[in-house]
């Protein structure tokens, strides 16, 4: 053995001999005859007589080369893992889940949180999170919940807001796992800063919202355009039929007079021209009225008492009601007031009720039932009569057209429902008709539910 080992051994044996201690062990490198070194542990135990005097010593040597190799390998392996853990991109924290305190952290954790390893050891659950998460959850109870899940073997992965030493909150993704040691009492948290991802998500969401907004604007615009196109077509149709017709008549009458310009024919011509010009004026006035309704972006809004609305219509029609022995039943279903255009509603109700009275069956007293109610997103008003009805198979497309009549009444001008429809549409509503010949008609008006005053 080396001189140093030899001196150490002699010194230590001296201690046994004088009785300072009864035994010791020492690592010794023995040199064999072939000069190779044998790593050993040398155990020395002193033996003493009854009076305590040293008598002899037992010295054994154990070859420990194998253990040393394993120990070095283990140390190297531990060091390797340490290096891997220390240099991992994600922050790693180890929590003792009995004491709920952190017992280890890597360099990334130091960088992310701003605490040193020593400082981490003073911290426990909840110290690295704000009191309340973005989701509104309290942090600590939530962590304990996660802990419970992790302990039952679930791999927890969740987004979490962490609080750094300087108080700054960082959006993170945390994975926690109960470490698979035999007597494991530790949970490993790996924490990744996802600020960038969050920012990108936010930007993406903002873009998405913008796109959705643009899309809904486009859809809105499209429906407005469609609406205007259909209105343009309607006006093209009206101008083609209703305006060209009297103009053509004037031309035809003048041709007739030029062909035979007698005094008698002049008088006839003037009489007819008078009629045609009246006709033309009426049509133009009707059109102007409708254009006015369609151009008014929003009609003036008033508070309308429904009961009074129907009373006013009944007053205006009182002569007909008396004359035809008509009854008008009103069921408001608790809706007493709406917010809408009083002018339009007066006109709409008057027109629909007067139609019901006008087109009643002969010798049957007209009965008009008016019902209002709320249905989903709509305020609904139904006006039902027991009149002659309309053959909808033939006339559905004409019910709300200008100058369309389907009853041979002398006073039917075919203007009312055209205007009524325009007024309802300008209030964002729709109108529909259901009818059977000889059984009666029901006109249904649907308006946004918001107009109901509660």
């Amino acid at each position, binding site marked *: 053995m080396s001189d140093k080992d030899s001196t150490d051994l002699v010194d230590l044996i001296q201690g046994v001999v004088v009785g300072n201690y009864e035994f010791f062990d020492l690592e010794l490198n023995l040199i064999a005859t072939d000069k190779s070194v044998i790593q050993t542990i040398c155990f020395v135990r002193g033996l003493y007589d009854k009076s305590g005097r040293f008598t002899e010593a037992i010295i054994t040597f154990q070859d420990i080369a194998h253990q040393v190799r394993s120990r070095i390998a283990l140390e190297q392996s531990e060091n390797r893992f340490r290096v891997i853990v220390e240099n991992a991109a994600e922050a790693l924290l180890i929590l003792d889940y009995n004491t709920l305190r952190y017992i280890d952290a890597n360099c990334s954790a130091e960088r992310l949180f701003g605490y040193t390893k020593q400082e981490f050891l003073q911290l426990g659950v909840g110290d690295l999170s704000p009191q309340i998460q973005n989701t509104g959850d309290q942090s600590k109870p939530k962590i304990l919940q996660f802990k419970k899940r992790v302990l039952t073997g679930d791999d927890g992965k969740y987004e979490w807001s962490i609080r750094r030493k300087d108080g700054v909150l960082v959006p993170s993704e945390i994975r926690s796992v109960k470490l698979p040691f035999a007597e494991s009492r530790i949970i490993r948290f790996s924490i990744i800063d996802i600020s960038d991802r969050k920012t990108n998500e936010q930007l993406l969401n903002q873009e998405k919202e913008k796109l959705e907004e643009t899309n809904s604007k486009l859809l809105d615009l499209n429906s407005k355009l469609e609406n205007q196109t259909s209105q343009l077509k309607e006006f*093209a*149709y009206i101008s*083609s*039929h*209703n305006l*060209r*017709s009297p*103009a*053509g*008549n004037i*031309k*035809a*009458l003048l*041709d*007739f007079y030029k*062909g035979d310009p007698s005094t008698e024919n002049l008088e006839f011509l003037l009489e*007819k021209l008078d*009629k*045609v010009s009246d006709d033309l004026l009426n049509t133009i006035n009707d059109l102007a009225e409708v254009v006015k309704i369609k151009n008014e972006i929003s009609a003036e809004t008033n508070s309308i008492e429904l009961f009074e609305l129907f009373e006013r219509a009944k007053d205006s029609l009182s002569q007909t009601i008396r004359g035809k022995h008509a009854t008008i039943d009103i069921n408001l279903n608790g809706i007493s007031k709406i917010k809408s255009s009083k002018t339009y509603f007066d006109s709409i109700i008057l027109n629909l009720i007067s139609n019901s009275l006008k087109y009643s069956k002969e010798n049957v007293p007209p009965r008009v039932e008016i019902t209002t109610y709320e249905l989903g997103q709509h305020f609904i008003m139904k006006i039902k009569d027991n009149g002659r009805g309309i053959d909808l198979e*033939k006339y559905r497309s*004409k019910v709300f057209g200008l*100058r*369309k*009549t*389907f*009853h*041979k009444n002398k006073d*039917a001008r*075919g203007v009312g429902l055209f205007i009524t429809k325009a007024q309802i549409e300008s209030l964002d509503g729709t109108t529909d008709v259901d009818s059977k010949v000889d059984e009666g008609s029901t006109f249904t008006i649907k308006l946004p539910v918001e107009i109901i005053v509660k």
Partner: protein
Amino acid sequence: MIEKIAIVDDDDIFQFTTKIKIEKAKLAKDLLFFKDGDEILNYINEHYAIGLPDVILLDINMPSVDGWDFLDLYKDVAENKKAAIKIYMISSSINLDDVRRAEQSQFVIDYITKPIRY
């Protein structure tokens, strides 16, 4: 000269001026007047055995049964009663939709816009 022309139009000024024109041109021996599709259909149903008009001048825009309705209803009459009346649509409308629709009808010979020129 045509035997019988029927004018189907609710506009009495058109009826009158057209009557003058037809008389001046000596186009027809006999002229019949109807206010809407319903009236002429009734007439056809009652007279198909005795003698139908040879020509119908048919307006589009009329109360109750209008020109288009008449064409739909006339289909049955033409098939069941072998009626073969020459139908001219005469309307103020210069709307292309109307013109095309008339061209597509198997019974319409021609589409003429008002006022009629000669």
